[in-house]
């Protein structure tokens, strides 16, 4: 059963050329996808459509069997910019999702209708430990490194037990060692939670390391999805394997082919 189904999507920003035209794409539950493409190709737009934060002009997005009309409570979203409340400590930031759910009650719109309002403190403690932030629980975001901030954001999202995790360039502003360790941590956690993941990136290496399947977006408007299968083994050794190098090379070739056709679509 598809976790996510984008059916005949058409979307353009007001007064601009269309980005998606009759675009159909689907994601099976438990798959880890990366969406790769240059800046301005519409990959973040696709993620916002899936998140229910943008609405297609035509077509519809179905997540877990329900047509999307607004952000759904079981979809987690992690952005490059962390999205932490600067006035709240790490622990308070982790509690934010629960507080919002408590604020609305289990209404099925803002919070899952089967939400139970107990053991939140225990869940928060578990996730603080799980991402290695238990020593920093009372620190404010400004006191954290970029990697620690993104760990906070990941823990905050995963603590809400999502079934679909969307990530938009989550590691792009981090230095290489931090990026690689967070990529590994994310893969481990997502497997553990049996999450369906869609990760948007402009980095070929990230797309090849993280994605079991890679959706390549080049020049809009997008019509038929171009999908690259990745014989993925989710461990650190994969990074130095010949298969990984091969995938990277294939992605690089595909991306530069599009650049030659449309030299303005760079960046």
């Amino acid at each position, binding site marked *: 059963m598809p976790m996510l189904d984008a059916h005949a999507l058409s979307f353009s920003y007001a007064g601009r050329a269309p980005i998606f035209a009759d675009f159909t794409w689907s994601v099976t539950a438990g798959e880890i996808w990366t969406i790769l493409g240059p800046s301005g190709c519409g990959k973040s737009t696709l993620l916002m459509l899936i998140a229910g934060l943008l609405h297609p002009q035509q077509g519809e997005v179905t997540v877990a069997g329900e047509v999307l009309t607004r*952000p759904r409570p079981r979809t987690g979203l992690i952005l490059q910019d962390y*999205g*932490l409340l600067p*006035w709240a400590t790490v622990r308070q930031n982790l509690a*934010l*999702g629960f507080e*919002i759910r408590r604020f609305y009650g289990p209404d099925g719109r803002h919070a899952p209708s089967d939400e139970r309002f107990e053991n939140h403190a225990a869940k928060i403690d578990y996730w603080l430990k799980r991402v290695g932030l238990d020593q920093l629980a009372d620190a*404010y975001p400004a006191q954290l490194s970029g990697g620690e901030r993104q760990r906070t954001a990941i823990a905050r999202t995963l603590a809400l037990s999502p079934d679909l995790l969307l990530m938009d360039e989550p590691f792009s502003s981090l230095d290489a060692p931090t990026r690689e360790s967070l990529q590994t941590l994310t893969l481990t956690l997502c497997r553990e939670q049996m999450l369906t993941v869609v990760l948007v990136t402009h980095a070929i290496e990230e797309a090849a390391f993280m994605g079991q399947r890679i959706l390549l977006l080049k020049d809009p408007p997008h019509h038929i999805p171009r999908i690259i299968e990745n014989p993925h083994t989710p461990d650190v050794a994969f990074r130095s394997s010949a298969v990984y190098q091969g995938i990277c090379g294939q992605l690089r070739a595909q991306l530069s082919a599009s650049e030659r056709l449309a030299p303005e679509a760079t960046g």
Partner: protein
Amino acid sequence: MTKLRPWEIILTLLALLVFWHIVASIAQLPILPLPHRVLLTFFKEFPQNLGIHFLASLYRVISSIGLAVLLAAPAGLILGQGPRLNRVFAPLIYLLYPIPKVVLAPIILLFLGVGDFPKIIIIFLILFFQILVLVRDSAAAIRPELLLSVRSLGAGRRALFRFVYLPASLPAVLTAVRQSIGTAVAVLYVAELFATRWGLGYYIYLNGSTLFNYTAMYAGVLAMSLLGMGLYFTVDALEKRLCRWRNLNLP
């Protein structure tokens, strides 16, 4: 701002009192009494009339601050969230903001007459625009990514208001109030010169210009200074307590 230690403040206060004492001793004028005589008068008068005048002034200032926060903070939040509405009102605020509101005092007193209400309104006007502008700008400065993230955690309009806009604008409210207290107390003095028999402004003016009781006048000035300082320190302490995240010692 430089961080001050309590003993530095006390030492400076003592030095000022010594300076006042020396100048008053040399000058030997009735319009410049010695500090200890002013203090004695202050403590003698405060439990009686002066205290009531103090409370009248405190009531007016607190009501103005309360009214200004209650009206300006939501208005600032709405304008800060809505670029279109802000486009409509921004020119108006731009025009009204720099007008020294104290010059409106006679007009407001003419229109609203005697009583506390016109005096509260005059101070309210000063605070209103300060809070409105700072809250509007702080709400507008909230990064869209933060809003997207919090929306993705399930927040709708009401929760965004409660969990993002409200805490984000709290520092702006406190900063605006703190910055305006000096002006507010100054304008309070002016407002209390008109059509009232209560308040520190009236007390100071009465003792200085009608009764020629200069020591009592100075006691009134001291009371008014304490009023301003007390409010300033209260808001400052609130700001430090509630906005700890803004004054972090970063590594």
